[in-house]
């Protein structure tokens, strides 16, 4: 009997909004599913798409990328740069045939503790329903004699 599928979710969040928002989820004692692993960076501007690719490479079934709402960036414009990057990245990934239902981009502010919990739960449920990202996992290790 195989164990029920529990998705691996990796989240990249900025220090000032979403990380702080997730802290607020904690201080508010709002519960959410424990599948997510959060990586903290200073700003969404710092989130290189390479990080997302590596997370997929390492077997993430779902990915969350989140930072300050537009206009609220601690560094004034890092999130605007990030937004453009994601706009282009998303299209590139679609052209490559990557299942973009597995990558969620979001703005969660430091005040949105409940929203963070909701986001994590929604993403976890959705990715659980999609099942393991086997299509991607299959190519890891393939092409080696």
């Amino acid at each position, binding site marked *: 009997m195989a164990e029920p599928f529990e998705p*691996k979710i*990796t989240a990249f969040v900025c*220090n000032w909004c979403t*990380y*702080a928002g*997730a*802290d*607020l*989820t*904690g*201080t508010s*004692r*709002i*519960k*959410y*599913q*424990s599948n997510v*692993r*959060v*990586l*903290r*960076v*200073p*700003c969404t*501007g*710092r*989130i*290189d*798409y390479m*990080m997302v690719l*590596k*997370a997929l490479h*390492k*077997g*993430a079934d779902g990915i969350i990328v989140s930072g300050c709402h537009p206009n609220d960036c*601690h*560094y*004034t*414009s*890092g999130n605007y*740069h*990030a937004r453009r*990057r994601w706009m282009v990245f998303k299209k590139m990934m679609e052209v490559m045939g990557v299942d973009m239902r597995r990558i969620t981009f979001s703005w969660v502010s430091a005040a949105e503790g409940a929203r963070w*919990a909701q986001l994590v739960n929604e993403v976890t449920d959705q990715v659980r329903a999609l099942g393991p990202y086997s299509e991607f996992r299959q190519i890891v290790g393939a092409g080696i004699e």
Partner: protein
Amino acid sequence: MSRIGVFTCHCGENIGATVDCAKVAEMCKDIPGVAYSVDYKYMCSDPGQRMMQEAIKEHKLDGVVVAACSPRMHEPTFRRAVANAGVNPYMCEMANLREHCSWVHEKGEATTHKAADLIRVLVEKIKHNEPLFPIKVPVTRTAMVIGGGVGGIQVALDIANGGHKVVLVEKSPSIGGHMSQLSETFPTLDCSQCILTPRMVEAAQHPNITLMTYSEVEKVDGFIGNFKVTVRKKARKLDEKLCTGCGLCIQKCPNKKISDEFNEGLGTRTAIYVPFPQAVPNKPVIDTLNCTFYKTGKCKVCEKLCPTGAIRFEQEDELVTLDIGAIVLATGFKLMKTDVFPEYGYGKSKDIIDGMQFERLASASGPTSGVMKRPSDGKEPETVVFIACSGSRDRSKGVPYCSKICCMYTAKHAMLYKHKVHSGKAYVFYMDIRAAGKDYDEFVRRAIEEDDVKYIRGRVSKIYEEDGKLVVMGADTLMGGEPVEIRADMVVLATAVQSNEGSEELAQTLHVSYDTYGFFAEAHPKLRPVETNTAGIFLAGACQAPRDIPETVAQASGAAAKVVGLFSNDELTREPIVAVVNRLPAPAYSHCVGCFLCLSACPYQAIEQEEIKSRSGEVIKTLARINPGLCQGCGTCVATCRTKAIDLQGFSNEQIYAELMTL
């Protein structure tokens, strides 16, 4: 091999109740590179910190992961503790077991495993941490204040009194700004000049303040603590050292019919002039556009008469470059003109004036010596209509914001009028009365209740001239929109406060951001209201948004405090979480190819150009360089850099990659 210590905190029951901390500590012992792992009730307590410091020494730890609460809470605490045990503070990372795990998940295996995972990620990160040291930037302890109005004067005085040199740059011939034009000030109705002039004189005489009037900032290079500012000293056509300010030249100047800016066009002045009698410095300038000599090549009356021979017709503008440590912008505002209102006749009627013109009419030193005379025929106006929100809160005029000061000065104007013309009638059309401020609402009430000013809540739809009167057509919305028609002798428009002329160009010169209306942008609307996003450049007064005098002065003192704080050390110390461009031995020098695609990604203009030169001085390669004095460590450039030549200390590519590899 690293020797990392992992310290798992129970936080009392906060973590301990849902996470099996002892098991986590046990699991962490198996992570390669972990030399010591222990759990403890309260890591942040004195005994907890002491235990950690002892363990660092005993087990020769070179890195520490504290698995406790959010790093946003206690990272400084533990970094300090680690530093006290002789390990670089940046070799300490925190795993957020409380806010991100124990408080948000149910007790159980999965939660304990997640806790261990969170630690594992940071253990791998820390293997790639490098000791970091605070960045020191030398500071030139001279401030420059741009704008010599009440805000600029206050900043200059506060910094100067704090013991530092200040250069106060003002573009017009005298300091004083708009406040010197005002008659009385709300809510106390004290004479504006009476309270301002002493400050102007104090600024002029202060040993730490250098006045540069009739001067403008031309160029700004450098960065916090180390700006190089080039100022254009416009030619006064006068040797200031020789001029005694006797005023003979002004008396004798034959060209007397020039519209007077200080009096808002309601009076005249000569071609050689001081803007107003109390001007500081009290040295005239020659208005070369209007001076007969510059127009015809003849006259030179002033030169002939000057007792000290101070006139210099051939004098040219001078460029002065100064070393400056901090800059405060206090460039003020301008008022919207009356000619943009079609409904009010495009300002064609001389008796439709703006608030500043009213100030000059009411001022004892004004063109009418404070006697109420309307501009068209000099008659005493029997009925005056004041219209608040003229242009403000009006999208069609491009000013959706509230100009903030008009409610108060309109009440003041109505009162001043009533005090001067006791039999006169004063009406105020308004949208809302915004009188939030100490003694402000009381002031408005006084106007209504004691001085019998008629307040009508409604907009004026049209003004037209008829039989020497201005017919003001409006509506009273409190009376169900009933039409109101007032035959007035004079109308005062409280026109919108706008960003000053040239503020966008100045912002570009200084590399500070500005909003869509040309007001300078603060670094944070709530928590950093006097700073700009460019380190070392601060804001005071209405150049940032509409402000009244008390707010301007308060912000000015706030900005001054920031500057004095900055100047309190020889060196500026900054967090080393900054981006760096890698450097390599020749012939590569760096992985940077000098494409400068990163340049526009930086919110702080921290990216500079660096030239690698051969011994003979020939440029071999041009690289990007990040100025650590300006970089705030967001890392946007790092993600933009194709060659990975830029990296962010504290969140480096290697650190993040290592974290990702544990997933």
